[in-house]
């Protein structure tokens, strides 16, 4: 058939926001911060101590200090956002059917939100009873 040199209408419609740009920048900044936070986290809990000695008491002692609360919470928040957005990229690439993609996203975002809630709760709202 004849090919009319039309513009890429869809692309134009999508282009009304700069959301993708913000996410792209966020991924880089959060990624940079996470590299250091996570290496620190892993180093402290797997190299400086014997992993197998970690138990309730160890966790409780550590999380009684505000510094570590904030440290871990930063990891939690950034990692969930970074990972969640990363997963969104993957889903956008791999799940071709729009309806399926939508519902997958609903489930995934729901799960991540729940984890954030749960994680934050256990960091800040729970009294580990050490003090």
């Amino acid at each position, binding site marked *: 058939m004849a090919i009319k040199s039309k513009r890429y209408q869809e692309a134009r419609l999508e282009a009304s926001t700069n959301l993708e740009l913000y996410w792209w920048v966020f991924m880089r900044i959060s*990624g940079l911060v996470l590299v250091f936070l996570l*290496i620190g986290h892993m180093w402290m809990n797997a190299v400086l101590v014997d*992993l197998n000695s970690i138990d309730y008491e160890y966790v409780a002692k550590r999380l009684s200090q505000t510094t570590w609360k904030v440290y871990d919470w930063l990891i939690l928040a950034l*990692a969930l956002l970074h990972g969640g957005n990363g997963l969104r990229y993957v889903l956008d690439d791999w799940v071709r059917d729009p309806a399926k993609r939508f519902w997958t996203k609903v489930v995934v975002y729901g799960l991540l939100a729940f984890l954030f809630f*749960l994680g934050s709760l*256990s960091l800040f709202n729970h009294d580990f009873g050490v003090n």
Partner: protein
Amino acid sequence: MYRGREGQWAFYLHRISGIGILVFLILHVLNIASAMWGPEVSNAFMKFYHQPVFQLGLLVLIAGVLYHGFNGLRIILMDFTAWGVRYQRQLWYAVWVLFVVFYLPFLLKIGGGILGGSHGD
């Protein structure tokens, strides 16, 4: 399989490790959150995770985090410097050098732990 070069494998590994880390993060948060139900529940969970198979998994996870992190730095250099793209291949090899340097202590410590059988006491 498309015979791509370093860049393609860097990308696939980055994606796979990213997904892996996210899955671990879910388990990890659930694990820590178990503390809310008191020492008994929590310690049971932790003991469960101290089995060698999970320790091996942890080694894989740490590898994933290190690779994802260092390759992420490579990506940032490519995105924000004028020369990063040109040296992307060399940067990828640099990622692996960093990876080995940082991974060794983990490997020795945790791997030694598994072999030494000092688990699940």
